């Protein structure tokens, strides 16, 4: 009999995340997943009615309630609704892609990834581990310890012309003897000019006693102006084993790169450098904890970031980025020891940073372009990375032209009365009843609404615009539904959620000022694309592929974005998302030396256009400050939806 027996503890591991968590027997499986940091979608909040939280039990047993959301076949295959299941024994649970929180978008990504992501690369990480068994020295064979290691590497793996870090030599005598003349050697190669005969010289960065080949991990990072993302990669299996994100600690010193540079001039670079290093260390701590990898087993750190973020991270004075003619310190920064910058990693770890083509088109864009495979294909591609700055690249495998413009923080929820980043409780979905003008909102995690994130903002304004509540100049039409459209402290506003329905206890509204900010931001991005496309003698109609990356990649509704005039009104099938392109590229070059070479090639291929010097840009910008655009003819599909015929 069960009675009041002591609850047994059970170990539950989640695949493919490869994370484990210990919970008492009888714990709800959805809660267990949340505790493990595995984000499972549960639109109904665990009531069992939506059927989005399906998982597969691979090992062990759960107690479950059958609902009509589960077919006979699914049930027999071991599929269960996490919210309806309780842990009975130790478990191995597989979380399929469609049950992850980013479901809809991830599905799309999975479908499109094969088309747009870089292909054709070999799994040849720049970082390798070689295990060698050395013959102990004798009077006949008394060459140095180092020569002994190198001799064996050459004999077994045909490695020659190696360079060796001094740090390796420092402890070498002890290491080889500790390992009983069996050691694992870690080598690193850097990029060479593609399609040249330039010789790659592997660098020995570490020698460990014994065979440690099974512990072969590296870190990939994206350092954004607003957020810092990090991942632990397992180079033996070629996969991500943990991901984490934190706000960039520099945020309190300014929202955009210009104000950060200004701050560094007034109050010193050190403070900003320390802030971002602290953030990097926090993220490292989180991903190591999640993945259960030891800091000592991390062999490399690959970072993509915009030029200013990288210079601040590396402690390089960013002053001249801000002053005409806008020069960065270096396009390619030589690898530097991570530890020397204060990053909590072992002494042998180098920080590799992506090459930056210019002051305002940085390594994050090179990384995104390489990750998207744009440089491999002949089709004319427009790559747009949206964040605090909008960066665009147009071109193909033969040429690339770039530009950048300031969009402001609106897309990340900044400068918006009830704006917030895309986390729990952020309104990211919206529809409006065309008759009653009553809203229907969706939030991240289906929590009670707390604010509006960038992608939500786009959906809201697109929806209100199509419903006629917002006019093309971004002002509300009055008198339609006085309950929802009312005069507030910042002019007219639309009530999305009333105080009783929110987490904040106050109304959540969207104001005319918010709409103005978004219109300015979207106008800058659109005008930037338009100006860039025109500067190479093309028109948007010629673009065969549009790749969107950045701040909201995963959650962005392309249709709404086109409706407000953020992106060109062309065939939706030409659009593809890649999410965080910068992180994607950092990951892929960690897996492939081919792509590492490509990054160098791409950075050299890029020709940068300064939009600040371009009179066309200003004109295009003003023309774009309207919904969807002053030129309806450029938005035929949106015009059709608005019931406005366009004469061709």
């Amino acid at each position, binding site marked *: 009999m069960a009675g009041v027996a002591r609850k047994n503890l059970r170990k539950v591991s989640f695949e493919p995340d490869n994370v484990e968590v210990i919970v008492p027997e009888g714990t709800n499986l959805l809660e267990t997943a949340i505790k493990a940091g595995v984000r499972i979608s549960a639109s109904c909040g665990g009531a069992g009615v939506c059927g989005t939280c399906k998982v597969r039990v691979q090992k062990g047993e759960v107690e479950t309630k059958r609902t009509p959301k589960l077919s006979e076949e699914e049930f027999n295959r071991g599929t269960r609704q996490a919210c309806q299941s309780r842990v009975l024994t130790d478990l191995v649970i597989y979380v399929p892609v469609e049950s992850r929180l980013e479901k809809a978008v991830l599905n799309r990504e999975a479908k499109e990834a094969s088309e747009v992501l870089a292909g054709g690369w070999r799994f040849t990480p720049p970082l390798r581990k070689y295990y060698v068994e050395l013959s102990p020295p004798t009077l006949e064979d008394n060459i140095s310890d180092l020569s002994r290691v190198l001799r064996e590497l050459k004999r077994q793996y045909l490695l020659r012309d190696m360079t060796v870090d001094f740090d390796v030599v420092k402890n070498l005598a002890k290491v080889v003897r500790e390992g009983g003349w069996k050691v694992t050697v870690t080598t690193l190669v850097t990029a060479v000019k593609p399609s040249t005969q330039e010789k790659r010289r592997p660098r020995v960065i570490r020698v460990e006693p014994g065979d440690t080949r099974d512990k072969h991990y590296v870190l990939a990072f994206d350092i954004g102006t607003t957020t810092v993302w990090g991942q632990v990669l397992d180079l033996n299996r070629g996969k991500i084993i943990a991901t984490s994100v934190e706000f960039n600690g520099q945020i309190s010193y300014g929202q955009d790169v210009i104000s950060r540079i200004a701050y560094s001039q007034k109050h010193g670079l050190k403070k900003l450098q320390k802030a971002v290093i602290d953030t990097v260390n926090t993220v490292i701590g989180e991903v190591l904890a999640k993945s259960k990898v030891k800091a000592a087993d991390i062999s490399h750190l690959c970072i993509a970031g915009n030029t200013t973020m990288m210079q601040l991270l590396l402690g390089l004075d960013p002053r001249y980025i801000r002053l005409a003619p806008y020069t960065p310190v270096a396009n390619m920064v030589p690898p530097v020891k991570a530890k020397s910058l204060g990053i909590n990693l072992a002494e042998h770890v180098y920080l590799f940073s992506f090459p930056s083509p210019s002051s305002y088109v940085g390594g994050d864009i090179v990384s995104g372009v390489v990750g998207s495979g744009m440089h491999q294909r002949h089709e004319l591609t427009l790559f747009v990375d949206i964040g605090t700055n909008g960066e665009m690249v147009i071109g193909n495998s033969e040429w690339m032209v770039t530009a950048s413009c300031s969009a402001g923080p609106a897309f990340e929820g900044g400068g918006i009365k009830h704006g917030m980043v895309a986390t729990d409780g952020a309104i990211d979905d919206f529809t409006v009843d065309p008759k009653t003008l009553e809203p229907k909102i969706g939030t991240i995690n289906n929590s009670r609404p707390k604010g509006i994130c960038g992608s939500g903002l786009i959906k809201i304004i697109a929806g209100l615009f199509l419903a006629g509540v917002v006019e093309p*100049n971004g002002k509300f039409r009055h008198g339609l539904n006085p309950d929802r459209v009312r005069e507030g402290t910042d002019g007219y506003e639309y009530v999305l959620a009333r105080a009783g329905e929110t987490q904040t206890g106050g109304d959540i509204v969207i104001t005319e000022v918010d709409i103005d900010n978004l219109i300015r931001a979207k106008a800058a991005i659109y005008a930037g694309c338009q100006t860039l496309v025109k500067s190479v003698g093309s028109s948007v109609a010629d673009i065969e592929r549009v790749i969107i990356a950045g701040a909201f990649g995963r959650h962005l509704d392309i249709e709404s974005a086109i409706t407000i005039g953020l992106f060109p009104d062309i065939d939706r099938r030409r659009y593809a998302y890649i999410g965080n392109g910068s992180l994607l590229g950092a990951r892929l070059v960690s897996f492939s030396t081919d792509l590492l070479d490509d990054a160098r090639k791409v950075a050299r291929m890029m020709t940068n256009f300064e939009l600040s010097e371009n009179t066309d840009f200003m*004109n295009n910008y*003003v*023309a774009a*400050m309207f919904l969807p655009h*002053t030129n*309806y003819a450029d938005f035929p599909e949106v015009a059709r939806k608005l019931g406005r015929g366009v*004469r061709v």
Partner: protein
Amino acid sequence: MAFEVPKNTYNGKIREITLGSGPSALKIGGETSYPLYIFEGAVPNKVKIAMEVWDTKPDDWPEAALEPFADVIADPVAWAKKCVDAYGAEAICLQLVSTDPNGANRGADEAAALVKKVADAISVPLIVWGTANHDKDTEVLRKVAEVCQGKTLAIGPVEEGDHKKIGAAAIGYNHTVVASTPIDINLAKQLNILLGNLGVSDDRIVMDPTVSSLGYGIEYCYSVMERVRQAALTQNDERLQFPFICNISREVWKTKEAKQPTAEAPELGDAARRGILMEAISATLLLVAGADLIIMRHPEAIKLVREVVNDLTG
């Protein structure tokens, strides 16, 4: 092979707008080619000149500008009649200077009553021009629209910030709207779209591109007007196919060069002649840029411009 003069091809046409009603109605616009390109298209209506009348006695006009109106300067009705009868004004623009809240701040009812009196007294169309203060213009021009129902006035400046309320009054009482934007093709187009969305009929819109005097950036106005016409005529941009109305005289006559007495600046020549020529040359530039109706002040300047118009339009 015979030489052929190269010609522009046009696929758009400027709308023909009728100002006023009945026997006093005046048509402007309607051209199918660049301004004055009579060898390429039709210019059915010559450029028209409206004369300005102030609703209050001006206190900062130079002598030369006051002189022709000295006998009527304190009576807007008589002033307007003199413009029509003595100088052949094709329209009158009544500038409601005294309604300015930073000036005399005259009330809407009083202003509207005066407009009505002037409108009743003249046989040409009336243009009514506010102070570009959105709140005050909304109040005054709405009243004017109501009181003058049936007169088919042109009322302005209607800007983005007050287009809804004034536009609605114009629709309700059947007047024409002077859509005014600050020297920018895109903003001009946006306002025209908004007015259209509001329900203002396309034959009730004229455009004020905002103009400035010779020596004070008129070349910039010229470029913007030129670009508007290019978009309207060669790209068939429907939301830019409206006639231009240019309120230039008050810009000219407030410049230092138009005001300085001869004694103060003898090197600039005779003050009266100087002011008249500045007005005439400014107006000429605007008509070359595409103006369809120009608001002017001095009868001598008007005479000169009429000669130019007749010479160029045949």
